[in-house]
C-alpha cells in the first residue's frame, strides 16, 4: 500500500535495491513493474528501454540532472530518503518538477514518516511509501497539517503575498 494522490492505494511496483555482491552492471532486473536504481538505469539503459513500464529511483547523493533528458522514459520516479533527516531529496524533487518539468508520479521512498509528509507534498511528491512499520492511515493525516503556507514551491506557484489580499496595519486606523 502507498499513498497516491492523497488516497491509500494498492501498489504493484517493486523497488530494486542492489545487494552487496551485485553491481549496477551485472544485476538482473526482474520482469514486471520494477523501480531500478539510477545507477542501473545508466548502466543497462539499452535493455531497459524495451520495457513497457519502468521506474527509477534516485539516491539522496545523486544528481537529478542525470535524469533530465530521460523523464519521459519512466512511469514513476522515486527519491530515496536514507534517513528522514537527510533533506537533499526535497531539492531533488524541486528540480525534477520545477526546473525539468517532470509531471509523472514522483514517489518518496525509504525513511518516510508522517511528519515529513506535508513538506514532501509541497516540493512535488504525489506518492509516498511510508515506512512499513507505521500505520499508513496516520501518515495520510500528515498531508493536511496546515491549510495555508507562506512560500511558493512546487504545489503553490505563488507565495502567499501574491495569492491573497493581506491588509497592513494602516487599514485598521
Amino acid at each position: 500500500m502507498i499513498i497516491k494522490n492523497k488516497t491509500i492505494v494498492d501498489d504493484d511496483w517493486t523497488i530494486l535495491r542492489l545487494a552487496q555482491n551485485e553491481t549496477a552492471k551485472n544485476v538482473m532486473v526482474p520482469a514486471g513493474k520494477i523501480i531500478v536504481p539510477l545507477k542501473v538505469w545508466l548502466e543497462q539503459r539499452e535493455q531497459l528501454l524495451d520495457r513497457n513500464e519502468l521506474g527509477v529511483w534516485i539516491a539522496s547523493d545523486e544528481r537529478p540532472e542525470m535524469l533530465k533528458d530521460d523523464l519521459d522514459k519512466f512511469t514513476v520516479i522515486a527519491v530515496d530518503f536514507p534517513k528522514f533527516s537527510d533533506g537533499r531529496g526535497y531539492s531533488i524533487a524541486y528540480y525534477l518538477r520545477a526546473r525539468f518539468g517532470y509531471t509523472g508520479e514522483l514517489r518518496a521512498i525509504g525513511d518516510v514518516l508522517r511528519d515529513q509528509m506535508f513538506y514532501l507534498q509541497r516540493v512535488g511528491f504525489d506518492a509516498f511509501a511510508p515506512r512499513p512499520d507505521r500505520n499508513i492511515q496516520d501518515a495520510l493525516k500528515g498531508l493536511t497539517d496546515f491549510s495555508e503556507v507562506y512560500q511558493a514551491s512546487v504545489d503553490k506557484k505563488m507565495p502567499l503575498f501574491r495569492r491573497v489580499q493581506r491588509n497592513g496595519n494602516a487599514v485598521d486606523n
Partner: protein
Amino acid sequence: MYRYDQYDQQIVNERVAQYRDQVRRRLSNELAEEEFRPLRLQNGLYMQIHAYMLRIAVPYGLLSTTQLRMFAHIARKYDRDYGHFTTRQNIQFNWIKLEDTPDILADLASVEMHAIQTSGNCIRNITSDEFAGVAADEVVDPRPYAEILRQWSTFHPEFAYLPRKFKIAVSGAEEDRAAIAVHDIGLSVRKNTQGEVGFRVFVGGGLGRTPIIGKVICEFLPWQHVMTYIEAILRVYNQYGRRDNIYKARIKILVKALGIEEFKRQVENEWAALKDGAGTLTSEELNRVSSYFTAPAYENIADTDSGLTSFKSENKAFASWMQRNVKPHRIPSYAIVVLSLKKTGRAPGDASAEQMDAVADLADRFSFGELRITHKQNLVLTDVKQSDLITLWKIAAANNLASPNIGLLSDIISCPGAEFCTLANARSIPLAKVIAERFDSLDFQHDIGEIELNISGCMNACGHNSVGHIGITGVEKKDHEEWYQVSLGGSKGNESSIGKIIGPSFSFDQVPEVIERILQVYCRERIEAERFIDTVRRVGIKPFKESVYATEITDGQEDDVLAFKPAQYSEPLYSPRF
C-alpha cells in the same frame, strides 16, 4: 510592531495542533525518542540535564508587553519563576515538562508567538539590530525585511532538513549591532549612490568550533531580490553542504571548501532561474509589512534638559547609568534605555517573572508598550522621553535592572553552561558570577571602559566566546574536569575578528586571576583613552600571554573564590550526556 493577520494566526494555531499530536504520539510511545527528537528540536525543545528546555522565538528580538507578561506567566506556571534571554534574542525556559509543552505553545499562540524553528537543522529565528527604527545611525529600518524573511522561512518545505542549523541576521545602521558577519547569512540593508535600497550579503560566517568571518557574496542586491537570492544560497547549501560530519556541516565549511568565488558562481547560476520570478518581493508586500513598523506617536517636546544635569551632578549612580545604559535616539528629546540583566550575583540574561512584569509595566508607562532583547542578553526600551529618565531609573533600580554596566566588564555574555546543557564541558554562569564579583567595583569597570567578556561552556560558542574581546571557552580534560581556554582580540560588528587563544587552559579558580593579569597589561599598555580591543590589536597578544603565564596561578588564590559553591539542584541528573 508586526501583528498577526488571519493567515499568520491560522498557521501558528495549526502548528499548536500538529505539535500537540506529536507529543501525544511520543507519550504513547507511538514515536520513538529518536524520531521525536528532530520534531521537538524544530520546536526548540531540548532535553537537558535536569529537565526539558524550551526556546521561544522572539522575531528579531522585538516584543510587546503583552508577550513579555506571557513569558512571566509561563515562568510562574510551568517553570521556576524565571527565564533566560539568549544571544539570539530569544528566551529559554529551563525547567519544562514535556507534557506541558503543547499548552505552553497554545498560550504563546494567544499572544502571536511560537517556538517554530528555534532549534534543529533549519532556518532559525531572524535576528536584527536591537535599536532598529530608533538608532541615530540608521540608514534603513531592517525590521520589515526581517519580518518578510521570518514569514518566508517559516515552514519552508525544502529547507527544514538542512545539513545543519542556519542563522540569518539583518542590520540597517552604520554600526553593525547584529553581528551579521558571524552568521550563515548576514544582510546589511543600505542605500546605493542613487538612493536605492539593497543589501550587502555576507555568507559563511559563524562561530562554533571553526569560527569564521563571513565573506561578501554580493555587494549590492536590490531589495526585491532578497528572498530569491537567499533561496538560491539555501538550495546550493542543502544539496552540497556536508552531511557526513556534524562539525563540518555548516555553510561556512562549504564556502571555505569551494572558495567564495566558486560558491558565488554556483549561487548565481541557481539564482538565474529564480530572479524576477514569483518569489520576487513586491512593493505592495513591502509596504504592507512596513506599515506595522511606523514610528510611535512621539510628543513634540522642546529639547530641554529636564533636570537631568542637576540630578546627575548630585547622583553618581544615575550619572553612571546615563553614561552606560542610555543611548542616543534619533529624536533628541527621546532616549534608548538598556535595562541590564547583568547585576553581579545573578546569571547573565536571567530575568525573574517579577522582573518581567516590572519591565512590562515600565514599557507600558514609558515606551509605547514595546521592548527589545539584545544579543548581549539585556532588554531595551527604545522610546523613552528624556524627561522620564529619572523616574524610570528609580523603578528599574528597585527591580535590580539598572546596573550601570552596559558594554563594561560585568556585561558578560554567557551561555547556560554545564549546569543545564548536555553539550557543555564546563559551567559558565558560576564563572560569570565569580568574575563579576571579583571586578564588582564600578569605578574600576568604568576605568577599564568598553570591553566584551564572553563565556561559553564548550566550543559550540553559544556564548560568543570566539568574538569576545576576552573569550572564555570550557574545554574538557580527563575525568570531566572543568578547564577553560582564554582568547583575546575577538570582536563583532563593523570590525569583526576571531580571538586568538593565549595558551594552555586554566582551572575554574584560576580564571579570575587570569582576567586580572590581562587587565593589568591593558592598563600598562593603553595609550590615553584607547579601548581594550584597540590595545590588543595594536600590541598583539604576546605581552598579555607573557604576563599571564609569568608566574604560577594557584587555585583558590582568593578567599571568595574558594568559598564559592556550585548551584545545587533538587532534580536528579537523569539525562544522558549525548
